[in-house]
């Protein structure tokens, strides 16, 4: 998130006043009067939200450095100036433009200046990340001390004893209790030990065109066509499918309309999350945490009737979707289609919502609303082998796709207490409570992930439109905190499973295989993969990741 949020922020005068004050305080910062102690915590949070401020474009390196300096208070309370002089840390992360490592450089400069440590950055393209990490692990050449890593890789790193256990002082400094529910243990932990400083929370939410579903003309046509219920934003996948088929051939404001957008092209394994978002309401039963594999055997559940229904939904909807959908990966679907006005419904991470008002190619400002992923009137009970209709109503199961980025310290620093403390101090700084608010509010590659990020009055007080913020943040908060959230297994090789599935899904979507036949092929490929990775070990780690 995100530029559009601060586009709602306070007026220019207020911003300049705040920024001038911040700059003045920063100028006199130092041992005698550091910036962080000049503000009460609430003041710091309000002040950093004004950097760079409304109408100033995307934050620059100078802004990142300023924020890094203003949020150094927690470090200063536990670390002496120059305490890590002579310590060199290698930090591996992504090199995406203006986010991730690029951002971390600026945010950690004040930390490095204060502590005396040197940080060597290892930048990776997102597509190279998995391969680089796995090669380092497999060849015993882990050459980094701190890593920005997604929770799905915890099985590869924490499960193999390669990560350093988080000291108690770090837990206190970063206020882990503030994390949203699903990011608390077992996420970030293995065998009862905590390893992760979260800096992101991930979930797919439901993005839809409010103008389409509020259009009176379409409502009339929906009625005439015998559509079930009122014309409104769908709340179940059945309604999504019906709306998608209905909208084919319709126009609004002279533009062709389409319904839901299914990314049918693979994305290095990430494309599987999008089938997952369609499937979780069908397959994530409230009585069980498992929805991809049976915990006791690692037998895939991906060919059960719930998953097959989700695949069939895609097959049924594809003819009503844009003609190039078979060659549309999630990136294309989100940024070249939905933001550009093609399609009325989409599951994606929080980035879509944050780009609606800021991306130059977006034409849907003021026409977008958000919710948690749609549900289903029935859910497949894998254990019982039958569909259940819940007394509580439709089954909702938000897909916590990827579980967010975190900062992990590698075990190789443990032999040197000074280096270990330095590494954890850096991780704690970048995952700190106040700095995280700024990262949630500005382009960073990270979404809100702390309970304190959902304090609506704080955003409103900073100048945001209440209705917009409430709707957008609620779609994420309600996903994170949902009691039936689908949390993927943090087991080694999870992206191998996804990649195998993508190949087969491509065949299914191209009409070369039926839904059940394809799902069976995915299950067979996953069984082979589990055998290759070591079934007993996978079961053990899978259970550990589920907290069983």
């Amino acid at each position, binding site marked *: 998130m995100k530029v559009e949020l601060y586009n709602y922020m306070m007026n220019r005068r207020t911003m300049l006043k705040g920024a001038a004050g911040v700059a003045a305080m920063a100028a006199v910062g130092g041992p005698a009067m550091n910036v962080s102690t000049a503000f009460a915590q609430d003041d710091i949070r309000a002040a950093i939200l004004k950097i760079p401020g409304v109408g100033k474009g995307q934050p620059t390196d100078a802004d990142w450095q300023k924020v890094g300096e203003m949020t150094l208070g927690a470090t200063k309370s536990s670390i002496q100036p120059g305490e890590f002089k002579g310590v060199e840390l290698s930090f591996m992360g992504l090199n995406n433009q203006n986010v991730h490592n690029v951002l971390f450089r600026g945010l950690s400069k004040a930390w490095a200046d204060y502590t005396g440590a040197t940080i060597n950055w290892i930048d990776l393209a997102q597509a190279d990340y998995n391969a680089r990490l796995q090669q380092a692990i497999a060849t015993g*050449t882990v050459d980094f001390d701190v890593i920005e890593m997604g929770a799905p890789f915890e099985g590869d790193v924490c499960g193999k004893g390669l990560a350093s256990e988080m000291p108690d002082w770090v837990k206190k400094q970063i206020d882990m209790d503030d994390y949203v529910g699903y990011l608390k243990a077992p996420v970030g932990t293995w065998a009862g030990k905590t390893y992760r400083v979260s800096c992101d929370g991930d979930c797919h939410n439901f993005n839809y065109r409010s103008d389409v579903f509020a259009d009176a003309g379409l409502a009339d046509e929906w009625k005439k066509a015998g559509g079930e219920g009122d014309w409104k934003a769908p709340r179940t996948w059945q309604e999504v499918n019906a709306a998608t088929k209905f909208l084919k051939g319709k126009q609004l404001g002279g533009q062709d309309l389409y319904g839901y957008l299914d990314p049918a092209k*693979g994305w290095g394994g990430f494309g599987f999350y999008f089938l997952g978002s369609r499937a979780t309401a069908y397959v994530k039963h409230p009585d069980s945490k498992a929805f991809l594999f049976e915990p006791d055997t690692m037998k895939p559940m991906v060919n059960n009737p719930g998953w097959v229904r989700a695949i069939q939904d895609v097959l049924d909807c594809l003819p009503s979707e844009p003609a190039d959908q078979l*060659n549309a990966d999630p990136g294309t679907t989100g940024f070249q289609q939905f933001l550009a006005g093609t399609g009325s419904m989409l599951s994606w991470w929080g980035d879509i919502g944050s780009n609606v008002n800021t991306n130059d190619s977006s034409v849907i400002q003021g026409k977008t609303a958000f919710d948690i992923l749609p549900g289903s009137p029935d859910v497949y009970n894998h254990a019982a082998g039958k569909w259940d209709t819940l007394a509580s109503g439709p089954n909702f199961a938000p897909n916590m796709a990827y579980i967010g980025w975190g900062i992990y310290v590698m075990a190789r620093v443990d032999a040197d207490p000074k280096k270990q403390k330095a590494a954890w101090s850096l991780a704690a700084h970048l995952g700190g409570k106040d700095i995280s608010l700024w990262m949630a509010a500005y382009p960073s590659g990270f979404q809100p992930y702390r309970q304190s990020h959902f304090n609506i009055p704080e955003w409103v007080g900073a100048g945001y439109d209440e209705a917009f913020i409430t709707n957008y943040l609620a779609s994420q908060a309600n996903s994170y905190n949902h009691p039936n959230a689908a949390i993927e297994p943090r087991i*080694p*090789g999870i992206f191998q499973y996804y990649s195998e599935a993508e190949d087969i899904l491509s065949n299914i979507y*191209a009409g070369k295989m039926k839904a059940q036949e394809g799902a069976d092929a995915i299950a067979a490929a996953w069984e082979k993969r589990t055998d*290759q*990775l070591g079934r007993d070990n996978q079961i053990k780690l899978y259970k550990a990741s589920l907290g069983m």
Partner: protein
Amino acid sequence: MTSVSTAASGQEAVAPHVTPERRQRGILLIRGATLLLGLVSLVQLLSVLGYIPFGFTNWQPVLIAYVLWSAALCWGLVLRDGEAGWRAIFVLPAVLFTVALVIFPTFFGLYIAFSDWNLQSAGGRQFNGLDNFYQLVADPYFWNALGNMVFYVATVLVQYAIAFGLAMLLNADIKAQKFFRVAFLLPFMLSPVAVSWMIGKSMLEYRFGPVTHLLRTLGWSQPTLLTSPWLAKSTIALMDAWVWIPFMMIMILAGLQALPKDVQEAAKVDGATGWQGFWQITFPLMLPVSVTTVVLRIIFQLKLADIVINTTAGGPGGATDTISSYIFRVYKDRSNVGYGTMIAEVYLIIIIFFVALLLKFTSRFMQRAV
């Protein structure tokens, strides 16, 4: 003649102008370095196999020992054999370099190909005999990609015909000849990755791409160039041709410029038409160049991957997949090193056989043509 001469009795060669002491130093140097390399390799091997409790943390010391051994071998040969040694080290570094970076990796690749090695496997690398090969034989994605390769290789002939035509044009006396030669060569100078983004992802983009816009203007309401199997395959082949036709064109142009002009002129005097001049004189004379060009181009084509990976990721439904893009997925997305290496090694053998057969066939064809 100062080269090493071997005595008929089987005694060691004696190089003139090399003192026995110097020769002895050379022998000692070579033997010492060889011993060091052997020792370091043995220790590391035994350590890795678990026979001894000590060893190096990785194979880097072995590499350093190999480099030292290579230097000592070159130096030792000079000391031992004098001028003959000097002559040997004109070639020896290249040989040692090739051994280290081509021959050893190829054979080491075979060793990996016969193992079950997934980087994320709990058990690490395990020898699994021919399992990877059997998996490959039954792998529909491999055979699908191989089938696609037949199509892509076949398009080389079309590319050759176009390249020949362009080369003939550029060989003619036309205005701005130099400009056109450079202009036609430009696509070849572009990275295929850039081409796949500029053309595949931008110009052919369904909504805003200028090419699709033009196609709509021409009456094609849904110009989806990359979503139906044959169209997607043909579009990939077109982009690939756009990059590589200039390479073939420049090779053929060089050949055309080397042709003796008097033969053509004599044919004209004898009343040959333009077509007869081309088909009965130019084309046969150009056969050696053409064969070299086509064979080289086929070898490049067999490695087609970048455009496919970037534009379609092998889809829709594997319609555009190539062996290389499939290997890319097996390695990169699935960390399946053992199986990926098996595919690569088998594909290497297929390429070697195919190219050998191709050369044999063209050699016979050319003999008949001559």
